[in-house]
């Protein structure tokens, strides 16, 4: 499996897309710190941008890469290699490449310009979202044979978690305004990795007071040890469950 990771990583790093992604992240993070006087505000803006860009690029890149490496996969399934190891190798290669880009683009600027806990948690949140969306993209690429359809599914998933889901949450909030929904909100936030990342970040930045009663409740729930562990577990679930499904499906796929 190490060798497959090695070869797909080498292949990806030769790809210009990943270089462009690194450059984009670096330009955004450095320029934000240049423009803002208050570094905490800069972290906040960087969070908003990275919550948008990182999942989008991760899911599109992984879907396209998996379709493009169909030849590589086809060549290797006829070799004495376990099929699950093959997909694991390509998947881990993709995540490694994206994480390297993230370290170069966001991690290093943060380390130099804002080496605080909030900076670290911004980096960790982006890293977690990279893995979650690569995992979802792998699932959609394995499930659909058609390239256009697969990319469409990944885009739709990104769109759903970024916009549609929040719309649904707002709708529920307004429709049920007469009921106490605070605990329901906590439950609903678990169902969306991006929201989970955002809440975690906001609590780090100590601005949860601005979110009213729900914010206080979030602070109370996510701030304590149990809540934090639960968030980490749910995130790990989001990272692993889709890719495990993908690998199970891939093992039985006719190529």
């Amino acid at each position, binding site marked *: 499996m190490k060798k497959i990771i090695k*070869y797909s990583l080498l292949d990806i790093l030769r790809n210009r897309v990943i270089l462009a992604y690194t450059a984009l992240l670096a330009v955004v993070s450095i320029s934000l710190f240049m423009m803002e006087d208050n570094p905490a505000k800069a972290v906040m803006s960087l969070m908003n941008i990275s919550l948008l860009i990182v999942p989008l690029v991760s899911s599109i890149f992984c879907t396209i890469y998996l379709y493009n490496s169909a030849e*590589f996969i*086809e*060549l*290797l*399934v*006829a070799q004495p*290699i376990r*099929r699950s190891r093959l997909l694991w190798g390509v998947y881990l290669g993709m995540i490694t490449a994206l994480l390297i880009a993230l370290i170069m683009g966001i991690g290093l600027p943060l380390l130099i310009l804002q080496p605080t806990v909030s900076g670290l948690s911004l980096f960790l949140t982006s890293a977690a979202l990279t893995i979650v969306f690569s995992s979802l993209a792998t699932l959609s690429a394995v499930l659909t044979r058609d390239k256009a359809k697969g990319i469409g599914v990944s885009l739709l998933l990104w769109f759903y978690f970024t916009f549609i889901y929040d719309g649904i949450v707002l709708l529920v909030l307004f429709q049920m305004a007469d009921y106490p929904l605070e605990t329901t909100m906590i439950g609903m936030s678990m169902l969306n990795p991006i929201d989970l990342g955002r809440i975690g970040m906001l609590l780090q930045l100590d601005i949860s007071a601005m979110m009213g009663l729900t914010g206080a409740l979030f602070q109370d729930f996510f701030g304590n040890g149990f809540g934090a562990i639960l968030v980490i577990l749910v995130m790990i679930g989001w990272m692993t469950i889709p890719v495990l499904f993908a690998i199970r499906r891939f093992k039985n796929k*006719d190529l």
Partner: protein
Amino acid sequence: MIIATNVQKKFGRLVALDSISLSCNKGQTIALIGPNGSGKTTFIKCLLGMVIPDSGFITVNQENIHRTWEYRQHIGYMPQISRFPDNMTIEQVIDMVRDIRYKPGQQLDEELIEAFDLTRMYGKRMRTLSGGTRQKVSACLAFLFKPDILILDEPTAGLDPVASEILKAKILKEKAKGKLTLITSHVLSDLDDLVSELIYLQEGQLRFHESVAELQKKTGEAKLNRVMAQIMLQKTAQR
């Protein structure tokens, strides 16, 4: 070495393989023939575990291949359409497969690489190669690890006459070493001096599996395409 029992595969409504049972032994060179869409490639893909049969099972060296992968180290496969990662050079592809598949102490067979003079083109990227050159790379990879079983899907398609003769000579040489070779081809004259057995598939069904000598005796013809023509004529006459 290979025993297939009641292998069945459907793609949607299409029955690609309809309870195929056959056995192939060491030292044989078997031609897998049949019209387009008769299930030859599907059967080969089942052997390699690329397509998973709906029912029935296949054993290679007395081991059921369902969901295993170790048996593939005994198989060299040359696909009908060779697809390679576009950005890699010939050398990188060969090195990669060697790196992934190599076991310490294993001897490699680089005869074909030399015979096709591929080292001269090592730096070329796969995307720039012609179909014939891709086939050559694919053939080299199939023979590289000295496998006991060779599966060649349309090996001579796209090869020029010189390369095609080199490949045939290589197949004969491996046959003499007692290896099992499965070849599919539509060009029967290519198979003439190579094969010892014929497997004929039609519409996913096994029509017959007989030795060439037997068939030649039955039909009174020497050349394979004449033999096949005779058999087809007899079949239609029987109807």
